[in-house]
């Protein structure tokens, strides 16, 4: 709710108020995430990543300096949308299983959530640049910013996938657990961003197209990394 108020406030250019609500949301989301981890410790309940992604994205919104109100608005609307989706479409009602009792399961989830937040931030920067009047913001600065977020997202996502593979080997003895198509979904996101970085770094496309590719990346990350962790509409409860 704090993130929704922040998004609304940003439309009325009440930036201080909006940032205060993002800060409040970040604090509450953090408490909620820590409580979720503590409740099932040393096990890990599955499908918690959407909450952690919201927390990480709120952190980015809070500590990032925005170029203008348009960018701030876009980030806060994205944050509100992600928070509402995580809140009303949970899938974390499954009991944890014993094989989640390893650091690699935690790293798989936490690093993956951080990566998603970075991909959304890259899309936010690119989206804000696309909707700003031409020439208002230098393309070079925007490009450097979305590239930085993409590289961090890619690095975290790779580390998350490697942690998942180590977990898979330790728990099941196989490099891929085929019962859960998460690895294939992860592969889509990984190859998409590997392609994006190549396109960007080798200057294969003009800046406009690359910016659209960064925005489309958020759609890919949402469909293949977030949706699998979300369930049907379910009113929020105090504890999973």
């Amino acid at each position: 709710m704090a993130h929704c108020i922040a998004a609304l406030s940003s439309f009325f250019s009440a930036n201080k108020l909006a940032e205060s609500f993002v800060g409040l949301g970040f604090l509450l989301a953090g408490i909620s995430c820590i409580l979720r981890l503590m409740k099932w410790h040393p096990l890990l309940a599955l499908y918690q990543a959407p909450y952690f992604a919201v927390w990480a994205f709120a952190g980015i919104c809070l500590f990032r300096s925005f170029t203008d109100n348009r960018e701030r608005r876009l980030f806060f609307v994205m944050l509100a949308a992600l928070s509402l989706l995580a809140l009303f479409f949970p899938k974390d009602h499954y009991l944890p299983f014993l094989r989640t009792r390893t650091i690699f399961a935690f790293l798989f989830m936490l690093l993956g959530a951080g990566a998603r937040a970075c991909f959304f931030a890259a899309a936010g920067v690119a989206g804000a640049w696309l909707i700003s009047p031409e020439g208002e913001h230098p393309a070079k600065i925007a490009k450097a910013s979305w590239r930085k977020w993409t590289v961090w997202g890619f690095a975290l996502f790779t580390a998350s996938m490697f942690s998942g593979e180590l977990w898979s080997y330790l728990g099941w003895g196989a490099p891929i657990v085929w019962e859960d198509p998460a690895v294939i979904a992860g592969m889509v996101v990984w190859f998409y961003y590997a392609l994006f970085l190549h396109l960007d770094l080798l200057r294969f496309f003009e800046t406009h197209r690359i910016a659209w590719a960064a925005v489309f990346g958020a759609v890919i990350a949402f469909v293949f990394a977030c949706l699998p962790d979300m369930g049907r509409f379910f009113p929020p409860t105090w504890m999973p």
Partner: protein
Amino acid sequence: MDALIKKIWHALASVRLTFVCMTCLCVCAGIGYFLIRSQVHVFKPLQDLSLISWAKTWGLTHISVTWWFFLLLALLALLCLNTLVCTTDRVNAIWRNRKRLPSRTSLVLRLSPHIMHYSLIIILAGYLTSYIFANTVTSLILLPDRPTRVENTSITITLTGLQTRTYQGKRMAPFDGRAINATASLLFEDSKGRTKTAQAGINRPARFQGLSVHMAEFAPRSEGGMVRRKYAGLTVRQDPGIPIYYAGMALFVLGLIFYVFSITPWGERHMRGSYA
């Protein structure tokens, strides 16, 4: 002949080919994701069977659901060739011009994406080795003090003890009085009489002569109620691919760390040579 090799090499070194391959991989894996979700039972045996056995049975029988997987393998093979050729060309160029670079750090930072490229090939080679040559024995049930031979090997395993840790508390109510960890004490023995005692637990495999033993199930899982006989269910794997893809992963992480450094202001200064 030389001209033909040069022509093929040149074609494989194309960056356009990389883009086409990666785009096709994204689309193919995207379709695959939805097909796996609809028919997960077709892909589940891949965990235990070798790739060839699976392809001959499940793969070809359910080709309408598995076609994307074969296409994915072909695309990955093409991407590997393309990466190998492209990367070798670039590494060659960097190495030839190494004396023009401002420092050794600059050389390492410039090589970092190529370390990742080579690592990807090593990881995929490790997976292929694993899926072709690994032997898996699933559901090897061990009862206490009864030596059991592992299929296709001369190794016997005996369960000498099973320690379970039950959860006592109210925080995780569904787990109250139920086991949250288990450790099996195992005695391995081969045909030459060599023995080893080791412990295998959840996420903690035991190893003996190239075998890795993973605990899949155990009993009793809870205190009270119906008393169940003590047993440990193991998955035993002999997988020559593991060291290969672990090495690839370690190398990839190293390359990634260097690459992340190269895009920081510190790295950019070193790359330009204006750090002094």
